[in-house]
């Protein structure tokens, strides 16, 4: 399972890449492999205010709908427009083309409470 070193991770299998005050959020390679065959992604509205660890999006595989939690708090500034026509990008490229939404961080210090790549690898046992 891929767990890039430059990202931070939530216990609930989301990743965040922060650049200045903007954080990009997606689900991990491990999460997409567990879900498999993602056929629909429901994203938050641009402008929505998200709280950390609250449901922010829904990823649906053939088998089930899964809530995706925002790893940190902030305002949604962009969502991935490609996922409407090609939700399988979350499976094929979870850390790049398969990103879900971007947030303007309201509490940037929350990032440091998330797991490092090493800590997340320990959690999923790889």
């Amino acid at each position, binding site marked *: 399972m891929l767990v890039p070193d430059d990202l931070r991770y939530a216990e*609930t*299998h*989301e990743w965040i890449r922060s650049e200045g005050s903007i954080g990009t959020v997606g*689900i991990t390679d491990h*999460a997409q492999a*567990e*879900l*498999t*065959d993602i*056929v*629909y992604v*429901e994203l938050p509205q641009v402008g929505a205010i998200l709280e950390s660890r609250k449901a922010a999006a*829904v*990823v*649906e*595989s*053939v*088998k*089930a*709908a*899964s*809530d*995706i*939690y925002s790893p940190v708090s902030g305002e949604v500034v962009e969502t991935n427009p490609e996922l*409407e026509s090609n939700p399988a990008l979350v499976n094929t490229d979870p850390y790049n083309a398969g990103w879900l939404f971007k947030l303007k961080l309201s509490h940037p210090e929350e990032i440091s409470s998330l797991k490092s790549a090493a800590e997340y690898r320990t959690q999923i046992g790889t």
Partner: protein
Amino acid sequence: MVSDSTNLPVKQTPLYAEHLKLGAKMIGFGGWNMPVFYSSILEEHQAVRQRVGIFDISHMGQIRVSGPSAEQWLNTMLTNNLKRLEMRDGQYTLLLNEQGGVIDDLIVYCRGSNDYFLVVNAAKIEEDFAWMQSRLKGGVAVSDLSDHFAGLAVQGPGSAELLERFGELPKRNQIRETRIQGIPVLLARTGYTGEDGFELFYPAAAAGVVWNHLLEVGTPLGVKPCGLGARDTLRMEVCYPLNGADLSPTRTPLEAGLGFFVDLEKPEFVGRDPLLVQKETGLRQRLVALKSDGKSPPPRAHYSVFVGDARVGELTSGTQSPSLGIGIGLGYVDVPFSKPGQKVEIDVRGRRFAATVEKKPLYKKRC
């Protein structure tokens, strides 16, 4: 995403080690620890629609009913008419409670005069057996053989080519005895996918021998091991009901659209009287097939169905159809809104998505 820790696994089939070797993702189903997929539900679904797939169905139950009064007695337990069965024939039938609700749906095969072989749902083995035991009459013996059998479903357009090397194939809905790698196998031409296919029942001790041999000799045909995920999407496309989801003790086979498998002309069977009353007074709801009109989240069990402001029903199954590329579902809908062509809306987390009641099945196999 939160990991699914519900349905704690209880029992393992004799193929458990083979599933792990193949890297299957396992889930709890009906008290069993079963593979949900090996590589991908979509790939396994397409393997069955286009080539051939093999499923472990060892969790399903096998019950033998025999003795001089077996036919006469079993015909009072089941809805379909056993007297139509010749040697080797199988038929889809239902076991009902006194209220006419469904305890189980099953296939009964005639293996000889007064000798019947029942294949029942995994989660219902004990209940079916106890129900029959408690109503037993003289001259009938009922035995639960479930632990002795491994089961495989070999399904798809290539399944006959894969199995014909082992001898004469049964006709549709029939069962024959054959041997694979020297192992005695009951081979039935039945399935749960809408494709040509077979179900094999053989001694559990030889589970891996037959499984591995079929995967090996099936390689040139593109055979793939398939899990419960694909089994569920395949059966939904052809609108086969799943007991515990689309069938329940509070729904009759008439409401489920299974009247074809209920012989109300039979003088006696458990659940007959309530069905006669229901036929007389009319149904309130009916199990229908729905298809999304456009892009939507996949329909799921328990989603509400609306016509305008009126809630007219609820889904019992649903998924994104891999073959049709659109959302599909099965659900009970008030009879006035149950005709094909009826426009409805499905409520998904507070948002409404347009769908239409369709004729069953939603998918027909390629000829």
